[in-house]
C-alpha cells in the first residue's frame, strides 16, 4: 500500500533515535528492516508466537502488532540492549548455563518477556513465570530448561543483592 511518511523520535536501548518510514510500517519492520537490528524475530506476524517481543516503556509487547508510529516518544528495549557477546546479561548467562537454547529463534523474545517480568517482580513463582511467558512459543526445548534458567537467574540476582 502507498503510504505517506511518518517521522518519530524515541529512545532505543538507551540512545535517542529518530526514524522516518511509511505510515503502515510495523514496529517489527522498523526494528529489523529500517534500523537493521536483526535480534528481534518475526515468527507468525500476528501476535501468537512472541518471537517479536520487545519492551516498550517497561512492558513486554508484540512488535508485530504495533505500528512503528506508536513508538514516538517511547522508550524501547530490544535484545541488542540486553547484553553484549563480551558481557552477557545474567539472564542470557542463565539460558546458556541451563541449556535453554536450541535453535534460538524464540530466545530473544523469551528473554525480553522475562526481563520485563523480573524488572517488576524479582522473585517470581513458577506460576508467575508461566503467566509471563505464555505468549512465547518454543518448538524445541519443551520449556523445562527455560523455567530452570529463569528461576536460576532470579535466584542469582537475589543472592547478589
Amino acid at each position, binding site marked *: 500500500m502507498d503510504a505517506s511518511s511518518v517521522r518519530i523520535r524515541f529512545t532505543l536501548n538507551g540512545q535517542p533515535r529518530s526514524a522516518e518510514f511509511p505510515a503502515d510500517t510495523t514496529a517489527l519492520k522498523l526494528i529489523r528492516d529500517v534500523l537493521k537490528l536483526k535480534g528481534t524475530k518475526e515468527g507468525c506476524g500476528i501476535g501468537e508466537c512472541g518471537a517479536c517481543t520487545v519492551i516498550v516503556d517497561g512492558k513486554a509487547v508484540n512488535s508485530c*502488532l504495533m505500528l512503528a*508510529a*506508536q513508538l514516538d516518544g517511547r522508550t524501547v528495549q530490544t535484545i541488542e540492549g540486553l547484553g553484549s557477546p563480551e558481557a552477557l546479561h545474567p539472564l542470557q548467562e542463565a539460558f546458556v548455563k541451563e541449556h535453554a537454547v536450541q535453535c534460538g529463534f524464540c530466545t530473544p523474545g523469551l528473554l525480553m518477556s522475562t526481563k520485563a517480568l523480573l524488572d517488576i517482580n524479582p522473585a517470581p513463582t513458577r506460576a508467575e513465570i508461566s503467566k509471563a511467558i*505464555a*505468549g512465547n512459543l518454543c518448538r524445541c526445548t519443551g520449556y523445562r530448561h527455560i523455567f530452570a534458567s529463569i528461576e536460576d537467574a532470579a535466584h542469582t540476582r537475589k543472592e547478589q543483592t
Partner: protein
Amino acid sequence: MSRLHYIRPETLAEALDHLDRHGSRNRILAGGTDLVVDLRNGDARPEFILDVSRLHELKGIDVTPEGVSVGAGVTLSEIQSSDVLERHAPALRKCSFTFASRQVRNVATIGGNVAHCSPCGDTVPPLVIHEARAVLASRRGLREVLVEDIASGPYACSLPPDELILRFILKPAADVTFADFQKIGRRRELVIARINAAAMARQEPDGRLSFFRFSLGSCTPTPHRMPEVESCLDGRVPTAELVWEAGRLLAERTIAITGRRPSTIYKEAAIHGLLVRMLHPLVTS
C-alpha cells in the same frame, strides 16, 4: 490508490473534527492488536489511521455517581490490576486473566475489544451483565448506547464512523455475593473462546437468589443476556436440579438462536456443563 496517513490528535476536539471530516475513510487505532492484523491481511484499507491511544479522556477506571466508569482506552493489563474492578465488577476483572497473552494484554484495550465486535470478545459478557452503556462522542455531541446493542452481527459494528467510544458505564454490582467469568477454548493459554460467559448473583442467607444476571458469548452471533435463564433462577433457591434445568434451558435457547449445526452436538453439552459448573458454588441442597 490513495495514500495511508497516520494521525495522532493532541486533543479530543481534534480527534472528533478528523472523524467528522474523514470518518468513512478512517480507522481508529487504540492498541492495534486487531487493526494491525487487519491491515496486514488487507481486511482493512483505510486512508487514515487515527491513533487515540494517548487521549486522556479515554483513560482511567473510576467510581462515579452514574456507575463504574471504565475508559475505552483502558488496557486489559490495567483491568487485571484494578482494585476498583475487583470490588465493583469482579467478572470483568476475571476475564482479563485468560485474555490472550501478557504482551497482548499490555496494549489491547476494552474499547477496541467491544468495537471489533467479535462474537468471542471476552470483555463483552462481563460488560453486559452490568448493563453497561458506552458513552459515544462525535461533533454532533454525546450519546449512550447499551454495549449489547453495539454489534449488529459478527464483526459488524453498528456505530457510525464519526463516533468514538469514550468510556463504558457499568451499573455497580450492589451487594453481589457471587460473580464469575468462564471460558472454554481449545487449550489453556492464548486461546480465543469457543464459549464464554459471565454471571453475577446476590444470594440471601436462606439460599434464595434475590438478583441474578447472566450473559453468554461466542455461541450466538452477538453476546447478550439470556432472560429465560435469568428468570429461571431469579428469586429461587438454586438446588442442583434447578441449576441443571437452567443449563438445559440455556443450551436450548442458544440452539434456538443459532439453529442446529455440526458443532451443536458438542456445544449443547458444553454450554449445559459450563452453566452447571459455573453456578456450582451457589448450589444449596
